[in-house]
């Protein structure tokens, strides 16, 4: 984050000695803020002040890497509190929890269930990226290491949810190459856990009974030189979890409190045990407000479909349109004899239009053009959705070879293209569809 001249001025010696070449300390501060001159040009700027400055110019929130190889992913690194201010950069990751108290069959079933959710949506793989392995003191460290070893090869990043030093050590032995998160430091054990995490080269997760304890432990670990950290939102209540997740993010980004600038883990499995719909609500809540990792008891398709869609939306770059893959999409069992409709590859257009077509129940082929990911009118105005681009796209895709039907509906907003298309695509009957997608159901039904 860039420092304002005022912030630098406050740290400056305020002597107006002119030795730096500037008439006043204020003018000098301004030049430093603009990057026009180095702070070292001032012989009187104290080391403390320089340290405070370099601290202040560091990114407000650390970017933390977890996982190894193909599973490597980044957390944190956000620079704004609201997506419209710039963009969110590292999406929320989801985990399902298992426990060393479970028997192998239960664990196998849970792993199979979480791996069941694995699909693609607008070019993004949607799956449960992490497994949270909770330590059960009753069954001991060996069993814990056994369970960890068992799931370490499942292609998911592990969160070792374990505040017992011996068990954590045993677990790290069997999985440290996969770069799990050692989520086990607290106010009592942080020194030992710090040693374990740094020796294994893994990220350390920090717990606290409340915000103060959490903050103190984070600060103590930073003092030991460890800044490869994540923190756990408080688990005493939903309210406390929300407060800690939001307040730490706010303190980091708005008030430059670096000790708060770490990714968060929110364990909604603990916050709403056994209540799957409540967990679904909380998964959504903490995706919108500042969970870097959210742990749930179960993520099946019911939870995942809205959740991953939401995440894709929230973490999309406001500057870049979301695109779907151009091509032919048969809907309601559409085949070579079914009517064709065409529109652009802007993801929102695709979803709204395909949704309405599905609702109509009429078998059809939705042909998505390559229109630069822009909406109908925008792409038309930009020349990316014109009669020639549509005709060319139909040739490239060999639509005529794949589909026998020669009826093509075009969006009502580009009705002007009808004549040109008829000229450029002989044999096709061009039909002007309604202007709004919601009218498609009636339109298609009426046509039948």
């Amino acid at each position, binding site marked *: 984050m860039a420092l304002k001249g005022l912030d630098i001025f406050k740290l400056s010696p305020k002597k107006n000695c002119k030795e730096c070449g500037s008439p*006043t*300390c204020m003018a000098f501060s301004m030049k430093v803020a603009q990057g026009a001159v180095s702070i070292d040009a001032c012989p009187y700027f104290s080391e403390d002040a320089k340290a405070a400055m370099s601290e202040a110019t560091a990114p407000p929130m650390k970017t933390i890497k977890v996982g190894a190889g193909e599973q490597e992913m980044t957390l944190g690194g956000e620079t704004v509190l609201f997506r419209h201010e710039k963009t969110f950069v590292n999406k929320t990751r989801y985990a399902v929890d298992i426990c060393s108290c479970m028997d192998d069959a239960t664990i196998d079933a849970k792993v199979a269930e979480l791996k069941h959710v694995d699909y693609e949506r607008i070019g993004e793989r949607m799956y449960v990226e992490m497994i949270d392995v909770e330590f059960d003191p009753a069954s001991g460290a060996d069993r814990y290491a056994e369970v960890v070893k068992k799931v370490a090869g499942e292609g998911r990043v592990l969160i070792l949810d374990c505040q017992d030093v011996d068990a954590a050590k045993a677990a790290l032995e069997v999985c440290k190459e996969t770069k799990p998160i050692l989520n086990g430091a607290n106010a009592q054990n942080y020194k030992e856990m710090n040693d374990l995490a740094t020796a294994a080269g893994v990220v350390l997760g920090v717990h606290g009974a409340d915000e103060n304890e959490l903050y103190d432990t984070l600060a103590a670990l930073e003092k030991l030189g460890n800044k490869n950290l994540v923190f756990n939102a408080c688990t005493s209540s939903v309210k406390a979890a929300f407060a800690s997740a939001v307040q730490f993010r706010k303190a980091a980004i708005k008030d430059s409190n670096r000790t708060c600038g770490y990714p968060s883990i929110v364990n909604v499995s603990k916050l709403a045990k056994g209540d799957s719909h409540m967990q679904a609500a909380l998964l959504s809540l903490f995706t919108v407000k500042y969970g870097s990792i959210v742990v749930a008891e179960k993520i099946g398709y019911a939870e995942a479909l809205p959740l991953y869609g939401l995440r894709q939306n929230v973490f999309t770059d406001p500057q870049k349109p979301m695109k779907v893959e151009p091509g032919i999409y048969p809907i309601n069992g559409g085949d070579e004899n079914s009517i064709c409709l065409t529109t652009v590859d802007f993801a929102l257009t695709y979803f709204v239009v395909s949704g309405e077509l599905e609702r109509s129940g009429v078998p059809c082929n939705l042909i998505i053009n390559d229109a630069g990911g822009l909406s109908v009118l925008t792409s038309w105005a930009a020349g990316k959705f014109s009669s020639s681009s549509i005709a060319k796209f139909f040739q490239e895709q060999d639509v005529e070879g794949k589909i026998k039907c020669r009826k093509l509906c075009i969006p009502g907003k580009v009705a002007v293209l009808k004549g040109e298309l008829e000229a450029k695509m002989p044999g096709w009957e061009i039909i002007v569809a309604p202007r709004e997608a919601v009218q498609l159901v009636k339109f298609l039904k009426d046509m039948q």
Partner: protein
Amino acid sequence: MGKFVVIGERLSTTAPIINKAFTERDPEPVLKRAEQQLKAGATYLDVNIGPAESDGEDLMKWAVQLLQSHFDNVPLALDTANKKAIEAGISVYNRAKGKPIVNSADAAGRIEYLDLAAANDAICIALCNGEGIAKDNDERMMYCQTLLERGMEHGMEAEDIWFDPLFLVVKGMQDKQMQILECIKMFSDMGLNSTGGLSNNSNGMPKAIRPIMDSALVAMAMMQGLTSAIVNPNDLRLMETIKSCDVFKGNTLYADSYLEI
């Protein structure tokens, strides 16, 4: 960023009708002008009671209470060379709609106005001027630093010191105009708030010309980062320009009726 703060300048002893009303404690003309300015979009009203050496304290109290009781605790800028009168005004001032503004300190004889503002948790307009008009922006920034340090020493937040570059009249000082605009940019780069008597630029020009010059200057100054001005809010062209610039700067959300609100 908040909206540009318009400080209405029309309650001033320099206007004969207001001078008379102040002297006679006649509410009507004062309230009338205040209402006109607020309706036109003023946020703050400047209350300039002049030197007011004899009865300043009583007059300022009267004016503050009169205006705040009639206009829902409208925030005010207390403008006089009589420091005791400013203190008296603040003693009866209601902060519900904003801190009082002390108008004004400078880097020479009136630097204690900052101490006064600090002691009363008020905003202070700080004129970047010493004795006579500053010769260049190095000198202005020197004053700026002096004023900022003084305020912070006394515990003020930097945001409560609104720096005034001292707008200069075009007729006679045309060559200084860009300097003033650059000075505003420096305030803005420093993260400081700014204000000033912007219409000073068009002093002595034909009446029909003044709104045009003032509007052009306010647009340029807002581009440079000016956050407030002491102006005549009943100058429609000027207010339309300010509201439009607020839209461009993202200080307020656009709506088709933006000029009416």
